[in-house]
């Protein structure tokens, strides 16, 4: 372990590790500092109930992760990482035990399932699924995995292609409006909208409408990390160790060392100082990075105000019911549609589109939601290594704000109602299951939304997106225009966390994109191929012209 490095990464979540791994493999001396004993951030699993029952307490479905560039570049397969792909992504169970099933890559089957609720919506689904595949792959997916392109430049080039125009046509709308425009049936509308809610998008915000046709076209590549979510953390730990980077775990960073107006290293909580001669990359949120670590007095007033006004969402935090079960759950809706028993996600309690505004209203008022719309899965059903032989685990998310308003008891009120709320989730879920009986439950525990912040302090109030995904805070405006290219007004300081484009979840894109930018700024030839969406769209436009 040295005292001086080329660069230091703050935070050993997946974005920090990916960014650090790329840069270390570029020959730079890199140090990653992580406050937790375990690294991986939200890639966290533990035996919270009983030994042998592994509960993935933060992330679960790592959508399409194996197909991403960093996964291949950093040789995650060689690190022992394995994924299980699931053919049935979602089943939405209704109160009267019917179900809609969304298959990962069989649109005809999905349409047939939708058709049992509305023939017209089944047709619409198939139409959008086919029509927007190009837009989903070439524009939306490309945008999600590249540094954001400034809007005017993007607009100019997208106008030149058919798929680009599709994007521009849908983008100004809100997800809610887009869903309602496409579908007529309230249950169908509810499911498609709710899946965006769960992905952390503010569905009532304009500027996100393109996400709907893109999602209908690309489906959901549901994947789970074999051997628990934390296994990906382990694989990244192996990767970073072999990349030659050093790692300090179990030690929080107290401040970013500033020298001559430049980020020059970090000061740890125990007082140790590590110098960074070339760069400091922070995977923390802007509030932590700029106000806590750099210090407000070192920032321009305008910029400091922007940081202070960065919005964290009250509609992404989750209460989680975690169950250790003697056996897997079977669903009453299986009589109507047997495939529900093989689905990954299950939605239990969302009766239709109308439930969503009510849920948002409660969340935005920062009170505990009245209704229950659980979304969850039974990981050990699909990966038996996550529970003792024959047994099962499950998790059930309820959207709920962590920062309860003072008149609703304040954030710590969650500790008072934890047991009661946990039990109410069990009771609610029991209606949908054949066998959710007290005998089946080995143990249950509830993780409140404020526990998310306690464990991962960048997720303010439990905001799993680390900053609202609304019109003003996405793409080239995330977290603010000045930092949208992962650079910051503080020389030598970069951002690589979920507060940057494209946001939270296990995408690795913020870390991947930041690595490319740092490498470029250092005047180094990257050993990988950093993505450039604009170039790609330009060549598409030229192709279409010819």
């Amino acid at each position: 372990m040295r005292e001086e490095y080329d660069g230091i990464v703050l935070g050993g979540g997946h974005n920090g590790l990916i960014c650090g791994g790329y840069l270390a493999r570029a020959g730079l001396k890199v140090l990653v500092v992580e406050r937790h004993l375990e690294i991986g951030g939200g890639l966290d699993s533990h035996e919270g109930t009983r030994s042998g029952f592994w509960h993935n307490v933060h992330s679960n479905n790592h959508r399409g992760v194996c197909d991403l560039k960093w996964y291949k570049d950093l040789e995650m397969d060689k690190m022992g990482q394995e994924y299980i792909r699931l053919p049935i992504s979602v089943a939405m169970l209704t109160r009267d035990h019917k179900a809609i099933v969304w298959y990962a890559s069989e649109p005809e089957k999905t349409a047939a399932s939708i058709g049992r609720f509305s023939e017209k919506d089944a047709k619409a689904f198939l139409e959008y699924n086919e029509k927007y595949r190009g837009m989903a792959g070439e524009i939306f997916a490309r945008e999600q995995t590249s540094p954001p392109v400034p809007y005017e430049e993007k607009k100019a080039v997208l106008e030149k292609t058919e798929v680009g125009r599709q994007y521009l046509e849908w983008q100004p709308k809100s997800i809610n409006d887009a869903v309602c425009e496409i579908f007529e049936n309230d249950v169908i509308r509810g499911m498609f909208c709710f899946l965006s809610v769960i992905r952390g998008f503010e569905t009532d915000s304009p500027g996100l409408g393109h996400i709907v046709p893109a999602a209908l076209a690309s489906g959901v590549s549901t994947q789970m990390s074999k051997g628990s979510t934390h296994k990906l953390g382990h694989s990244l730990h192996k990767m970073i160790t072999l990349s030659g980077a050093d790692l300090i775990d179990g030690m929080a960073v107290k401040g970013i060392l500033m020298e001559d107006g430049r980020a020059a290293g970090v000061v740890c909580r125990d007082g140790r100082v590590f110098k960074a001669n070339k760069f400091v990359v922070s995977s923390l949120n802007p509030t932590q990075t700029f106000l806590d670590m750099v210090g407000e007095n070192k920032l321009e007033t305008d910029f400091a105000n922007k940081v202070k006004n960065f919005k964290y969402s009250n509609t992404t935090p989750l209460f989680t019911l975690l169950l250790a079960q003697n056996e897997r759950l079977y669903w009453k809706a299986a009589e109507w549609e047997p495939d529900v028993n093989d689905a990954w996600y299950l939605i239990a309690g969302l009766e239709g589109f109308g439930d969503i505004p009510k849920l948002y209203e409660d969340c935005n008022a920062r009170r505990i939601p009245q209704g229950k719309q659980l979304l969850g899965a039974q990981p050990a059903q699909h990966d038996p290594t996550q529970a003792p032989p024959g047994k099962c685990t499950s998790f059930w998310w309820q959207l709920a704000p962590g920062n309860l308003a003072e008149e609703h008891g304040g954030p710590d009120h969650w500790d008072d109602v934890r047991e009661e709320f946990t039990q109410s989730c069990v009771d609610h879920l029991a209606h949908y299951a054949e066998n959710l009986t007290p005998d089946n439950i080995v143990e249950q525990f509830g993780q409140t939304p404020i526990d998310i912040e306690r464990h991962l302090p960048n997720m303010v109030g439990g905001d799993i997106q680390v900053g609202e995904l609304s019109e003003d805070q996405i793409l080239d405006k995330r977290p603010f225009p000045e930092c949208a290219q992962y650079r910051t007004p503080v020389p030598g300081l970069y951002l690589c966390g979920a507060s940057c484009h494209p946001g939270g979840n296990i995408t690795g894109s913020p870390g991947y994109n930041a690595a490319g930018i740092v490498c470029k700024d250092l005047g180094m030839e990257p050993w990988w191929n950093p993505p450039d969406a604009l170039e790609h769209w330009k060549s598409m436009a030229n192709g279409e012209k010819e």
Partner: protein
Amino acid sequence: FEEFNARYYRPPVQMGTILPDGRALFMYDDREKTIESIAGFSEKDAKKWQEVCDNYEEFIGTVIIPALYSPPSPPSEQILVLEGSPEGMEWLRIMRMSPEEVVDEWFENDAVKAMVLHQLAIPRGVLPDYTGLGAIVPLIVCQVEHSQIALSGSHTPAHAMWRALIRAGGDTKALAHVSKILVEKGEVKGVELETGEQFFAPTVISTIDLKQTYLKLLGPEHLDPEVVTKIEKFRLDEFSVFGVHMALREAPQFEVQKGYEDINQAFRLNIGHDSPQDYTEILGDVRMGKLPEKLAFIASVPTVFDPSQAPEGFHTALIWQQVPRKLKDHTWEEVSDEYMNRCIAKWREYAPNLTEKNIIKAVAQTPVDIANRIINMAEGGVFMGRMVLAQMEGFRPIPELAQFRTPGVKGLYIAGSCMHPGGGMIGGPGVIAADIIAQDLKIDKWWEDEDY
């Protein structure tokens, strides 16, 4: 391991016994201060302490400690060396005694005796009346081993070792349960997992406990029936540990008489063992399969030495109370909450601020929890085999296996805590196994032997 972020800290106040009258007795990293503390209780014992150090320190440092990291030598070897001199004969004499007998012979004050005996069970697995292990007493008095805390928590060295392994070209597979050691014609071939997946290797090293390695994974058919019988008769630890882990708003503050304030800086706390008699009482219950009526335990507040183990301003604390592995009349689940509260209440007698309000959360860890989580610690026996003379050194676990090789199965080694020198975070079995395997494979060792 320091390259990989393992760091240790040795607290200056290594240990403290708090007594009901508000006095306290200390062992410091600085011997002079230890002796001064003892002198406050007995001038005579302080003198004896110094004398023991003068007599044995060098011998222990140069002979006893290196032996912990070397393959066990034949039983006659030590005796041959020692019987030639009066000092050697004296060592052999105290060796034949029990630790309790040695402290009784050397010291007069109960608190001093209790302080020495406190360091037998944890970390050494030895009980005060184990005959033939009297020589542990000078080892404790000379303090050649030190109490250290892993900075950032005990898991940090595990991460460091893991990274060292990965960087050295090793690999790991997690959540993989080995169900079989594969053997063909007297040679080991690899392992099979519960899932049926197989991995092949000409060398297999098991750090699992003795019985699971040989009776479950290998299968008795590959061993001499006499060896199998001995393995079946191998005795597990006589005791287990009941743990209490607390998250606190403030560190426990002991109420002490003036001059004994160091107790709040002592790393290893002795609460309740005031005299050798207290150990006898607890052991009586342990051996009867009863929950010890008397509460006397090891406690510690790690965050006093390493604030990084809790949020800013908060603390963690732990209690380890000696208990039976199995209770005769109850399940652990039935008694655990109440017993945890009794343990905490006992600490509160000495540190009144350990109130309900101070405790954010307390959790108990029973012997069953230990065994469930770390399955080689069968029945919660944390030393993976009783640390009695008949199961130590060249007799650990049984004479036929004491050289880490498996007679009749080429390439199969055993290297866990059931081997010499036993359990505890000392790494001895791993180091010795590496030496022996390097020798068998005719590999040039890149590391140096212990110097002795």
